[in-house]
């Protein structure tokens, strides 16, 4: 039987702007993904636990409040510490170009900015999810 792709759409830290996260969540749903949405104001520990318990293929972090350079690497460290090593981590939102290299070095596979095309995000996710 087919492996249904499961994705966690997460908002980290003091960042209440979740319109983008909801649009992306909806797009993934419409593309046939099972989307776990955990709401705003999540700590990296909570997101890592959710990713582990839900056994997701992908974690997509939406960040619009500027703390991505600390919170996203923290999240990736926690995932690794829990042995969650086969999950694809994506970031989206308002992330300056200068920060992208640092995020990728920390383990983020790809960063999608405000202009990103939803179809392109989904195609990328499908192509790179490790257990597809």
């Amino acid at each position, binding site marked *: *039987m*087919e*492996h*249904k792709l*499961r994705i966690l759409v997460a908002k980290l830290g003091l960042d209440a702007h979740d319109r983008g996260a909801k649009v992306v*969540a*909806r797009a*993934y*749903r*419409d*593309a*046939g*993904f*099972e*989307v*776990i*949405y*955990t*709401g705003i104001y999540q700590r990296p*520990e*909570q997101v890592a*636990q*959710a990713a*582990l*318990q*839900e*056994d997701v293929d992908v974690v997509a972090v939406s960040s619009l409040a500027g703390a991505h350079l600390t919170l996203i690497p923290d999240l990736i460290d926690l995932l690794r510490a*829990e*042995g*969650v090593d086969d999950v694809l981590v994506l970031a989206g939102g308002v992330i300056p170009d200068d920060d992208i290299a640092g995020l990728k070095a920390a383990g983020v596979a790809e960063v999608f900015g405000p202009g990103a095309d939803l179809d392109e995000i989904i195609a990328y996710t499908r192509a790179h999810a490790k257990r597809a």
Partner: protein
Amino acid sequence: MDLTTVLERFHNGDRRALARAITWAENGAPEAGELIRSTFPKTGRAHAIGITGPPGAGKSTLVDRIASRFRELGKTVGIVAVDPTSPFTGGAILGDRIRMQRTLSDPGVYMRSLASRGHLGGISIATGDVVGLLDAFGFDVVLVETVGAGQSEVEIMDLAHTTCVVMIPGMGDDIQAIKAGILEIGDVFAINKADREGSDRTVMEIEAMLDLGHMGEAGVNRWGGTAQANSGALSRLDRTGHHGAADAGGASAWIATSSRHAADRHGTANPGDISWRPPVVKTVAKDGQGIDSFVDRMEQHLGFLRETGRWEQLKQRDAAAKLRDIVAGRAARTVLDRAAQAGDLDRLTRAIATRSTDPYSAAEEVLSLHMGG
């Protein structure tokens, strides 16, 4: 992680292995068979509690509170929450974790979101196996939250030892309360959002409905013989107990049916018997009001099941249902595979479509040709 690693780590209490095991069970992966074989002997200990009710009744928030309460009582809790799959895209938004933030950081709690994947009974096909895995993993309590349910999503009753039906005030006049369906399956009722106007009236309507089918005060009732029997309650038996049986008329037919169902599930009102009259509790999940007594009632119901031998009966029932399901599924698949290979499936499909035969005759032919041996 391969099967051997997952099994070894599962039996050592590793939650990541549990998570992967659930994924395999849910997907009907090749590993699922061996997984169930290896974990099944450890099942049969957890108290499985179903939480059902209409969308927006506050089920997720209640589950969060209930889980916290069980943790205070020293019990570990597994949670399964089912949300609907889109019938158009096969995708789903699983948002139950949003309302469960209180307990989800607790290492004594594990929570998994499931999509209904096209199944319409309020849970998904794999929900039973997932509950089994949480049970085998060692959780004391497994809470199962159904999709927002209307009147016919009653499958949770076959999976849970204790079924809790959550209602909210102002959902309709009292005729809603006597309809068949989810109101018949409750072992415990919660009127959530009880700080809203009309909650007393809703409680009254549910109580009145329950009075028609059940004897005695809410909770465990002992009829005759035992210390707790009380004559006041016994006189209520005359007043309400034999209504359905005495009145053979059409209007009361549902009462008779409801009484039979009640007798099956909750015990009869014969002197000497122990029966269960579903209690109704008021809760305000967002403030945590009424949660302690709600959980008390669930535990009382568990006590009732154990004391009356129903706990063992439920195991028998589950075993029979599982065996039937698996045999029926495999038998159907075998016959259909054979018929397909022989070309009969295609031939008869065309014949039905062109109206040169009918579906029943065609099915008879398939069965007579391919069911033997």
